[in-house]
């Protein structure tokens, strides 16, 4: 196993890829019997400090429907200066620039350690990055002030040549002109009217109706000049914009008692999208939407302005009682698609105590690769630091963001791609390697990711199409190539190519090997993605049932047991953790909506389907550390039995960081022992989890909610809801143990779950 673990780790480090199976069954039939599909988590822009980009362009296979990139797996005839495509077997001559090629003088892309390589494309003009702030002004004074400060601060983080724009909205939508001297100008749109992109552009004076037709010669300069009014280089307008932001007022329209402020989020976005569409199509741009409440009027309205009508809950949705849900969702989806087509991404920064309509708006970010950040107020460090971290830079001093990514997948003949799950949209590119069987976003071999960052991870699903009766030759390898084109944050166009190969194995004869090549972590995350993807469109219970069935089938396939004897059930090491992941997944907010608002669910799912494997696993099964006088900090079981009076627990659920002081510790702390010199060690104990938490906080995006609580504290619920309820009020004394804390829940514990699983797995009827 160690070999496989190392192999997996090495592959992840080098190519940013984790496959569910690292040996591939050689036929379609066998593959389906494996239950967990051949699939992978792929992080296209995984940070590779050790990988300098090459300054030339990739060499492509000359076959029109292939165009695979030359890679280390290709057979090369150095003498003939010919290479054979390992996907279509087309023989291609090297381009003239490769004339000097030889066994001893190989280009980087042919070296095995460069299975992932990055090219810089020199062609074409480079466009500056564009940041368009779309700011809700229906905020409390304090919130608005904080937001204004954050925005002003952000100006200093932008590259000087980046273009910025500002749209504010409340009851009306204002597009601010930044180029003007003297009077501050803005264009105003009514918040209730759905305008087409063309109308918006006309109203902004971006197109002169008729003018372009008449004077076809000069449309370009005109447009450029016009767009300049709203999108200006930071270095030129930062003073102006800082003042503008400073003078930003709360929405001046009176809000009568019992009403919500009228918030035209829908139109504001439409204007933002329309503006960019008209001025900088196919250029990397980031629309950053800051909202302090739900859209309450116009297209995209999520809830009416009557406070007596609460915003939809899961209950309402299940009862089909959410009036605006479908319409609003449809509206935002259409907008997200438009935006995606133009390569612009949309971030949503929602800070409010109540829901803000993320459920309806999530697609804006999901489809365009934008961020969603949810907080209680703009005046919190959660928002401030998260926002700041959007502009964090990598080791090269470049933003950790890339735009307009297009990822293409090439597969060797034995397999086809079924789909992808992650922050992407289909580009509907049909090809020979596209499977008819869709999983996630399928039916294409190309996906667009308007915005990427080093942790953006896609779940890719494949299908083995090799027929059972046409075995793969021994030693043959399946190959997958990921070609990701994107605009780097320094405005360069780049192409990153990862070529991955795995051995084929005959599932009948080599099932052991296949089993041992199982990456249960990756598989858990991939299955979770599938589940979450289904949950978006299916009823919760159906998804759980599906997951359960998959789990049972997997256990039946790989478990060792005697029929009808649950106690005899055993799983190999490579699968041992898998059921536990599934147990926690079933309880996770990604699939359970109880106790979560629709917005929260959307928020959690949004992040789940884009983080890399490690983060995803944390989300599925939070990590629990224990701090006590009994020894160094250690990870402990995510179980109620871990909650002991003399421990401090640190739980990381990705979204929350909970520091939980056990009963005794809490009492000590209350008594103030940590202030006494003689209890310095206690002080250190208290400090230890804080330091660890700080470390996590520093690196995580979005910043997790930081919770410091103690035994009996109301916030302790965050911990209690996550741990396995091995002790409940139902079984508290049956075990006769005194350790741990009982959880007041009717949820089944892992033990019960496993028992039941075994029972079903061994059952012949299942």
């Amino acid at each position: 196993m160690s070999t496989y673990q190392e192999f997996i780790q090495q592959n992840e480090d080098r190519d940013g890829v984790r496959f569910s199976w690292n040996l591939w069954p050689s036929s379609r039939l066998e593959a389906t019997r494996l239950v967990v599909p051949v699939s992978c988590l792929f992080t296209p822009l995984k940070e590779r400090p050790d990988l300098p980009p090459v300054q030339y362009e990739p060499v492509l296979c000359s076959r029109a429907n292939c165009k695979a990139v030359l890679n280390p797996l290709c057979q090369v005839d150095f003498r003939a200066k010919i290479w054979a495509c390992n996907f279509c077997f087309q023989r291609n001559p090297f381009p003239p620039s490769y004339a000097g090629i030889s066994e001893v003088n190989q280009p980087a892309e042919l070296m095995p350690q460069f299975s992932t390589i990055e090219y810089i494309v020199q062609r074409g003009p480079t466009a500056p990055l564009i940041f368009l702030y779309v700011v809700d002004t229906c905020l409390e004074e304090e919130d608005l002030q904080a937001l204004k400060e954050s925005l002003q601060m952000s100006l200093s983080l932008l590259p000087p040549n980046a273009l910025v724009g500002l749209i504010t909205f409340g009851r009306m939508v204002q597009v601010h002109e930044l180029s003007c001297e003297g009077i501050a100008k803005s264009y105003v749109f009514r918040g209730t009217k759905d305008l087409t992109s063309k109308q918006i552009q006309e109203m902004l004076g971006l197109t002169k109706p008729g003018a372009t037709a008449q004077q076809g010669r000069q449309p370009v300069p005109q447009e450029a000049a016009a767009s300049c009014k709203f999108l200006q280089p930071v270095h030129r307008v930062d003073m102006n914009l800082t003042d503008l932001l400073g003078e930003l007022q709360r929405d001046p329209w009176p809000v009568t008692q019992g009403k919500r402020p009228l918030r035209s989020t829908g139109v504001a976005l439409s204007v933002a999208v329309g503006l960019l569409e008209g001025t900088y199509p196919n250029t990397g741009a980031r629309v950053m939407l800051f909202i302090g409440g739900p859209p309450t009027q116009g297209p995209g309205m999520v809830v009416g302005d009557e406070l007596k009508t609460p915003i939809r809950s899961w209950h309402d949705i299940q009862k089909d009682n959410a009036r605006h849900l479908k319409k609003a969702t449809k509206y935002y989806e259409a907008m997200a698609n438009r935006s995606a087509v133009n390569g612009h991404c949309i971030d949503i920064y929602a800070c409010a105590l109540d829901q803000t309509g993320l459920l309806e708006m999530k697609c804006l970010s999901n489809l365009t690769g934008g961020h969603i950040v949810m907080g209680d107020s703009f005046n919190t460090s959660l928002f401030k630091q998260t926002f700041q971290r959007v502009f964090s830079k990598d080791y090269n001093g470049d933003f950790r963001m890339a735009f307009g990514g297009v990822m293409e997948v090439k597969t060797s003949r034995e397999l086809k791609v079924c789909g992808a799950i992650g922050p992407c949209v289909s580009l509907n590119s049909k090809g020979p390697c596209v499977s008819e069987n869709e999983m996630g976003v399928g039916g294409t071999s190309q996906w667009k990711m308007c915005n990427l960052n080093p942790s953006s991870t896609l779940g890719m699903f494949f299908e083995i199409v090799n027929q059972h009766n046409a075995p793969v030759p021994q030693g043959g390898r399946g190959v997958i190539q990921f070609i990701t084109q994107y605009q780097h944050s320094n405005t360069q166009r780049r192409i990153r190519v990862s070529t991955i190969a795995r051995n084929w194995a005959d599932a009948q004869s080599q099932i052991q090997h296949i089993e041992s090549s199982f990456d249960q972590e990756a598989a858990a995350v991939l299955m979770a993605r599938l589940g979450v993807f289904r949950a978006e469109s299916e009823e919760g219970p159906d998804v759980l049932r599906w997951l359960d069935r998959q789990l049972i089938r997997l256990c039946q396939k790989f478990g060792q047991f005697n029929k009808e004897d649950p106690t005899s059930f055993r799983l190999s090491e490579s699968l041992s953790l898998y059921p536990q992941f599934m147990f926690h997944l079933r309880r996770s907010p990604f699939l359970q909506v109880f106790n979560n608002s629709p917005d929260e669910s959307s928020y959690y799912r949004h992040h789940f389907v884009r983080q890399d494997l490690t983060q995803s696993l944390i989300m599925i099964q939070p990590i629990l550390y224990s701090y006590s006088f009994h020894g160094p900090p250690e990870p402990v079981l995510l179980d109620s039995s871990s909650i002991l009076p003399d421990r401090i627990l640190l739980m990381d659920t990705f979204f929350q960081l909970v520091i939980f002081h056990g009963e005794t510790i809490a009492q000590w702390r209350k008594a103030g022992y940590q202030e006494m010199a003689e209890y310095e060690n206690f002080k250190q104990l208290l400090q230890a989890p804080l330091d660890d938490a700080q470390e996590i906080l520093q690196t995580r995006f979005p910043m997790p909610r930081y919770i410091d609580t103690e035994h009996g504290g109301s916030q302790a619920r965050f911990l209690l809801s996550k741990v396995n309820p091995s002790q409940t009020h139902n079984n508290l004394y049956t075990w006769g143990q005194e350790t741990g804390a009982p959880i007041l829940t009717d949820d089944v514990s892992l033990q019960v779950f496993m028992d039941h699983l075994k029972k079903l797995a061994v059952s012949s009827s299942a």
Partner: protein
Amino acid sequence: MNVNQHTPMASPYGQPQPGYGQPGYAPLDGGYPAPYAPYNGPTSAYQPGAPPQGPVRGPPVSGAPPVSAPQQYNQYSHSQGEMQNGPPPMTQAPPRPAVSQSYNPAGMNMTGPPHPSYPQHYGPPPTMQQVTNQMTGMQINSGPPTPAGPGYAPPNSSQPPVSTAYTAAPPTSYAQGPPPASSAPTQPPPPSGPAAPQQYYGGPSPPSQQPFNSSLPPTSQQQFTPAPPPSQQTFPPSSYSGPMPPASQAPAPPVSQPQQSFPPPAQPTFSAPPASQPPAFAPGPPLQNQGSFPPRGPPPSSQPGSFPPPGPPPTSLSSGPYPGQMPPQQHPPPSQPSPYHSGPPPPGVQMPPTSMAQSNHLPPGPPGPPGPMQQPPPQPGMPGGFPPQQNGAFGQVRGPQPGYAGPYPGQPNYGAPAPAPAPAAPAQKRLDPDAIPSPIQVIEDDRAKSTEPFTTGVRGQAPPLVTTNFQVKDQGNASPRFIRCTAYNIPCTADMAKQSQVPLAAVIKPLATLPPDEIPPYLVDHGESGPIRCNRCKAYMCPYMQFIEGGRRFQCGFCSCVTEVPPHYFQHLDHTGKRMDCYDRPELSLGSYEFLATVDYCKNNKLPQPPAFIFLIDVSYNAVKSGMVNIVCEELKTLLDYLPRENPEMDSVVRVGFVTYNKVMHFYNVKSSLAQPQMLVVSDVSDMFVPLLDGFLVNVNESRQVIESLLDQIPEMFADTRETETVFGPVIQAGLEALKAADCAGKLFVFHTSLPIAEAPGKLKNREDKKLIGTDKEKSLFQPQVGFYNTLAKECVAQGCCVDLFLFPNGYVDVATLGVVPVSTGGSVYKYTYFQAQSDRERFLNDLRRDVQKLVGFDAVMRVRTSTGVRATDFFGSFFMSNTTDVELAGLDCDKAITVELKHDDKLSEETGALMQCAVLYTSCSGQRRLRVHNMAVNCCSQLADLYRNCETDTIINFFSKYAFRGILNSPTKAVRDTLINQCAQILACYRKNCASPSSAGQLILPECMKLLPVYLNCVLKGDVLLPGADVSLDDRAYLRQLISCMDVSESHVFFYPRLLPLTKLESDSLPVAVRDSEERLSKGGVYLLETGLHLFLWVGASVQQELLLNIFGTPSFSQIDPSMTSLPVLDNPFSQRLREIIDSFRAERSRYMKLMVVKQEDKTELIFRHFLVEDKSASGGASYVDFLCHMHKEIRQLLS
């Protein structure tokens, strides 16, 4: 008849004076002048027509009439009038009263006997002949008229209508009929009037006149004299006789003459009557005469003198046919007056024995008793022989004119030939313009008469004319400044009303500004329960409520319902049944007052917010280039300190907002907390909205800095704009939405330049199509192009959003459509075609200043309640009506008048009279909800004569013009014109038939109070709206149409009959006496100031004295006068100072600033100026006064036969 003759006369003149001929009208007037130089010219022109006549009538007429006219006036005017009256029989004491004067054109002609014959002859001609021609004219007239051209012909006829009756035959008729009538009329202070006629007679009379001569005759005769000397005089006189003449005093002579002339004829017989007649005229005309008159004296005299000469010719003519007629005619006139006489009548009547003459005479007699008032005389006067005077006039005129300066001055111009007395003689045939009723005379008479404050307590009493300065004391009826009625005695029954065709209407100016010496309406607070009202009809507490049962209840004067008096309002009654506190409470003792409204009277039951003013400025290329944007912005900086307020101590509570626009809208945030204003562009013009609330409407003082910064920057921002397209509908929508958002009423000031062709609601296309003019489709050009603005207007009204539109067009902008909203919301439209910063700046700024500063009420609803029996059925003005009773005005300012037409729906009783209560609920500019109540009681009469005796022509014209201008929306313009003429003819025919003493059918007899109806009506008919010239754009017509629809009587009066002042001599405390609006009255050596309420011209004669030029322009040379100057140089000499004072005072009087235009004689611009000489034939085909009078006479005769 005579009148008709006038025209003919023209010809006659023409002959003598070729020059005149063409001027046609001018000539007429010139008629006088003609004698001088002018005539010759004109004459020639006329001649064609006239020529034939010329020989015969022509000479006599023309010559004679003029002269006589003056005389008449003179006579009428005052002394003479009376004097004459005395002599005659009548005294037309009360000039005004003189209801009718009859012109006997025919009469004129007539020799006594001939009359009958004349009528016939004249019959045809009558129309025209009016005066002079009568004789020959009569016959000739017929001829002449025609020659004159269609236009003339009719006009001629029209002339007759004037006031007097022309009767060819008149003689007889006059004699008989008139007397009685006249007697009745007594009112006619007429004495004077009659006198005038007499004068005429005098002229004519020579033979017969003599009697007249005694008093009037002379004058009238003067003119006549020349022509008719004896017999002729008669003719001319009779026809044009007095009536007309009086009107134009200077010309008056002629006018009066006609009338008088009539009398004259009669006179012979009724010698006495003649005399009286003159007086009658005098009343009306007298003034004029007087004014100018000094001349009178002279004129007469001169006339006589002159007459003789002319006379001869005329005489001959007249003598033949006319002589006889003449007399009769004259008589008739008197008859008319009769109505007035009524009082005095009896006596008068007898006297008048004969028609006109008698009447006049009679009055005189009676007058004595009744007082000069007895207008009756005037009537006679009217009839007075025009002819004679005219003839005489010429001769005399010349002489006098110079003296008069005013009146005749013009002549001089023509006059060069002046000496041409001779020509004059020939002119005789023509109807003497001076013999027909002169507006100037009437105005001057009224002025002279109105020395005491006018007290409103007496029911049925007509107030002084709008041209008169007088003080009002509110004693229970609304001041005439608030309400003017067409009639102060309204018929008891619908039948009578229908028969008379006199429109029953009131022109109400609810928020009129009062002069400083009058007290504005008191504000009454009836407490929380609101104003006390009748339970049934909801009329507000007013002096007409009768308290009964010891004061516990009151009976409504309108519907007779009895209502309990609320305890808090209870008060004991005194022994007369009046409440003890009657004089402590404005609502019980005054005609006008205000109530504080309670929340029940507010929209949505919420007390109103203070109003807001929003300035919406077009910043398209044209607007910037013309300098408009710059000027507006610059001006607003200071103007904002003068927003309307009720308490001068306090800051105005009116908030302001700013918008600029081209094809998109720019709103501005000028919140006081901002360092710089912010501009908010709204491009979505298809669905207008207001982008901001807080910061858009601000208090001027709080945001002063930001506003100033904004106003500084607007011109800069758009200095380089290339946008030429504009929108308009969304502009108003924007303002409306802003007011809606702020939940307040307010006013939009829109500064707009061009046809809104940009894609937006309310987009318009250019539809100006000259080809449609005159067709049945013409009306569509006055209708809005799209329905959008009507809907928008409705919304504006609902919100209390008043729109004032300032237009700066360089081409067609479709005022008819753009004006819909302003007109429906009680707003105003200002138009500055081809605006140029340099020359139009002052006018625009003054208009703007006044418009911004003037007191205005918002969100107003006006309701007119009347006593049972009549009902307000129709409303004219700038407002919107969603039902048939409530006049809704988004804004109502102090210059807006609403004309209300009343109709019978039952009988009225003479005892109770008819009551009218106009209540206006509005929000004051300080945001207070108030009710302004105006009460008006008028008498009811069962005698038509009473109706005619107490009506007001100016108000009738106001009504007619509004009625007609609305009519053109639905009917072809021609039909509207015909309707007007027809109704006018019916009114006068009804009078002739029912009130005037019997007289020859050929005699034109006009009610004293309506003797100016024809001339004014002609002005309406030939105005740009109803009869556009080739150079009048559709926009101008639409603009005027809308403008007039909300004018009050005073403005409509000066608009239709401009004020023309001779400036030769200026006295420090009074204005020079105006002269009639005719080229004939202009003297080549003079300088004249003409004012229409919209325009101000300074006409400079070609041979003006150097000294005058130095005084006015500071230059000694005519050629060095810069015709483009818009203000006079400030020179340190009394003349210049006084002139500028006068100009300033004129401007102050009018609601719109009048740009001064300097017109040099024979300069290109003189064409424009001539357009306003409304008594002349107009370039667009409008009839001259004389011609129209003849035409009217013909119409009347047709109706009578």
